[in-house]
Structures are given as structure tokens and as C-alpha cells.
């Protein structure tokens, strides 16, 4: 699965996700990637999220929208909201994976609870990060 989240010059945030799904899937199985709220979500009042991982869990726990809702209604920071959902809610449920998320100020969070996540970002100051593993 691949994805991107951005803050554009008009102050809008946008999220997108694209995937080949799960190896050996059958019966028209669909994961979280095309499900708005599960694998992809964006709201200028909170954040934009693209997810990757074990899709069935991301659908059941409404992961992308849950991160945005925690920011919007609980006043959590982007980092706290994304970390809570990925490293607490999902971990307790047994769901592996991660998300990339951005808020309207350009803050970026990229938490994951698996061994690695291919990821990269460029923040509002132009700082580039490219990483695969936790370290």
C-alpha cells in the first residue's frame, strides 16, 4: 500500500491511498485503503490520514477518522492522536500497521506498530526525512 498526505498553499489538507490489497485474497475482498474513514480521511479542522496495514482491523476501528476525531473533539495533538490509535487502540486489538498524518499547520506524524514502514516527509521548513525502520 502507498499513500500521501499534504498541506497545500491554500491551507487545505488532502489524503490519498492506493493498494494492491492482500496476497492471495479471494471473494472480492477489500481492505481499508478505499474505505473513507478507515484507510483514508481528511478534515481541515483536524488532520489528513493515509493508513497501511492489516486492513480488516483498520476498517473495524475506523482508524483514519478516529485519529481526526481525537484531534477535533478531544483536542489532542496530531502526534498524540495518531500514536494513541496506532500504538494503543490497534495494538490492543491485534492490528498491525501504521499511518501517515498531517494537520493544517503542517505537523507530520508517521507512527507504526510493525517492524517497519517505508516512509518519507518534507516539513514546512523543508526538512526531508526518509526512513524504513523504527530507528
Amino acid at each position: 500500500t502507498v499513500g500521501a498526505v499534504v498541506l497545500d498553499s491554500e491551507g487545505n489538507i488532502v489524503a490519498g491511498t492506493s493498494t494492491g490489497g492482500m496476497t492471495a485474497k479471494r471473494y472480492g475482498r477489500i481492505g481499508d485503503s478505499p474505505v473513507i474513514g478507515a484507510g483514508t480521511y481528511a478534515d481541515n479542522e483536524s488532520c489528513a490520514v493515509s493508513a497501511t496495514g492489516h486492513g480488516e482491523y483498520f476498517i473495524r476501528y475506523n482508524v483514519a477518522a478516529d485519529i481526526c476525531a481525537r484531534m477535533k473533539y478531544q483536542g489532542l495533538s496530531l502526534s498524540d492522536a495518531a500514536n494513541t490509535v496506532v500504538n494503543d487502540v490497534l495494538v490492543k486489538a491485534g492490528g498491525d500497521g501504521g499511518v501517515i498524518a498531517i494537520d493544517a499547520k503542517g505537523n507530520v506524524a508517521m507512527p507504526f506498530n510493525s517492524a517497519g514502514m517505508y516512509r518519507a516527509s518534507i516539513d514546512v521548513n523543508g526538512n526531508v526525512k526518509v526512513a524504513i525502520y523504527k530507528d
Partner: protein
Amino acid sequence: QGKPPVAIAIHGGAGTILKSSMTPEKEADYKKVLTHAVKHGYTLLQKGEKGEVAVVETIKILESSPLFNAGIGAVYTFDGEHELDASIMHGGSKNAGAVAGVKTIRSPIEAALMVMNESPHVMLSGKGAEDYAKENGLEQVDNSVFDTEFRKQALDKAKARMQQVSNGYGSQQGNERFG
């Protein structure tokens, strides 16, 4: 007055990415594509392109790379094909578009954008989504365009494991459970 702030983050999937099975060359290949994609998206944003354009053009780079599970390089279904999904959402308008289970659309994220911008719907699936994309001029390809040898080997391994343990998804405990 300075330029308005722009920023971008991308991912290429998560899962059991073992350091032991990652050669320095392979790691460099991944980082090269990730760097190219994120810088391309950032440049578009700096030029004032809309966020949805930056998202789609960035993801198209990742869909075109055989390294990632999307577009070329997508994993195989049980039947040896590729079924692709994509979605996009705009945080200002709350508009969203998605396609699911498509086999012949060259860039699923382009199709998702088209559903968001050009249709009254949010999600189109399967043959209907393919027909819609075709009628609206999106590039169509044979499903084999998405083939890669290492994904075929992953399918063979997964099927062998599934056959050993039991039938059904209950036996999908390997890395293939990741999207």
C-alpha cells in the same frame, strides 16, 4: 510576506520488513524512490498546485515502482490476478472518491480522483469502476502489466502455507496479511 507553508508525508507500506533480508542495494532502491516521490510532491505544492494534484502525482510515482504494493508491483490475488483499490479525500470540501477491486485501470488513484471530482458518487467498484474510468478517458491496461516475479513467489508461498494449515484466511498469518 513569505510563501504559505506546504508539507507532505508519504508511505510505501508497513509490515515485516526484516533487516536481515534487506540488502544495502535494496534499501537504497527503496529510499531512492521514496525520496524522488516526496520531493516531486513537495515541488508541486511549492509551485502552488492543489493538494489533490500533489497527492495523485506523488502516488503515481509509487504506483509505477515495482517495489511497492500498488499499481505495478501489486500483490496477486488467489487466482493470480491483481485487484487494485484507491481513495482520496479533500479536507476542505470533505469530498472523497474511491475505486475498489479494479483490474484494468493503469492508475487507480487517478480513478479515485475522477470519482471525487467528476461523479456524484464516493466509491465505485469492479467492472463498473472500470467502465466509468474507460468512458472518461483514463488509461486502460492489461492486468499483466502489474506483474512482478517476487510478488508471484509471495503468492506461491502463501498458497503453500494456506494448503498446509487449512482453507481460508484463518491460515493467513504471514506477511501477506498486510495491505
